[in-house]
């Protein structure tokens, strides 16, 4: 998938460089881009390492477990088909709390366990409403502190790299609410069992 997109980007660059007469610029852009990618990775590297360390403290000290317990009552409302299964609800809550804290490495395994659990409860051959809801929640951002973007802003000399936090929270909430509503509404148009 990414391979096709990459070749497509190169292809339209070559075609457009020829039509615009920018062939020498295109050639130097290749080496500039490769060099810039290393500068970029190094300049955000320190912050990424620091945050990864902080996140490991959150995980080991049980902070994410605490959050998991707080989230359960809210999540039961979003997953009515799974609300009686302790194990599945636990995995969903662990997935969401790891996402909120930015623990990507913990969020994905918990999310996969939750997806398998939802699928087992449902036994259908197509995606259940609960599984679609879980996926939509995971594709819209939940992270409270967008550490990577803040690292990029810091590396570019932003006056206050974290001043975007309220805007990010606002946009994330809008995106989650729209996603959850869309999942609820659209589930009526994609009926079960059309496999």
């Amino acid at each position, binding site marked *: 998938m990414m391979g096709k997109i990459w070749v497509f980007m190169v292809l339209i*660059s070559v075609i457009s460089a020829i039509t615009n007469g920018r062939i020498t610029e295109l050639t130097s852009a290749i080496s500039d881009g490769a060099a810039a990618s290393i500068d970029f990775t190094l300049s955000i590297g320190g912050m990424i390492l620091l945050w990864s360390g902080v996140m490991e403290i959150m995980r080991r000290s049980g902070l994410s477990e605490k959050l998991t317990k707080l989230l359960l009552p809210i999540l039961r409302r979003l997953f009515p088909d799974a609300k009686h299964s302790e194990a599945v609800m636990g995995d969903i809550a662990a997935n969401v709390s790891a996402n909120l804290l930015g623990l990507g490495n913990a969020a994905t395994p918990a999310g996969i366990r939750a997806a398998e659990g939802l699928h087992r409860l449902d036994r259908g051959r197509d995606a259940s409403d609960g*599984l679609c809801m879980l996926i939509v929640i995971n594709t819209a951002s939940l992270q409270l502190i967008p550490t990577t973007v803040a690292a990029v802003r810091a590396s570019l000399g932003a006056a206050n790299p974290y001043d975007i936090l309220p805007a990010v929270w606002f946009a994330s909430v809008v995106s989650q609410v729209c996603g959850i509503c869309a999942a609820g509404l659209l589930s009526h148009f994609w009926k079960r069992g059309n496999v």
Partner: protein
Amino acid sequence: MNTLTALTVPIVLLLVGGFGLYKKTDIYDALVTGAGDGLRLLTRILPSVVALFVAIYMLRASGALDFICSLLAPAAGLLGIPRECTPLILLRPLSGSAGLAFGSEIMKNCGVDSYVGRTAAVMLGASETTFYTIAVYFGATGIKHTRHAVPAALCADLSGFIAAALAVRLFFG
């Protein structure tokens, strides 16, 4: 507000460290081990960052990027998204590295504290790599009939992008 957001990170560090001490976690070991995981993450994303920076620099130098922006500009204008940020709408759901590479170029070229630069940052911060997530979850469960998952996820993405531009206008207008 500005002092408050500037204080967020020091306070988060203090609270997380304090909570860890209170729970008798070996916080220094956790910090160092976690940073090691971060280093592995960085080395894992570096190859795709190289590939995508090259592609994005090529798109820009060839004039293709201006062309794509001008094609998308009317639709983006209706949604209130600045034209420089429109390629992010297409790239971000497909690839995290591409979104990051592209977003950081927008921030660098338009100014990291400008309206456009901030919008790019908020768009990145308030979205996920949608198609990757969908592939992982449906791959794990072996389900091929995905029903409304993709359209609903794209609704979430698009509303997040519109809200990102709106939020920057509201908070920094």
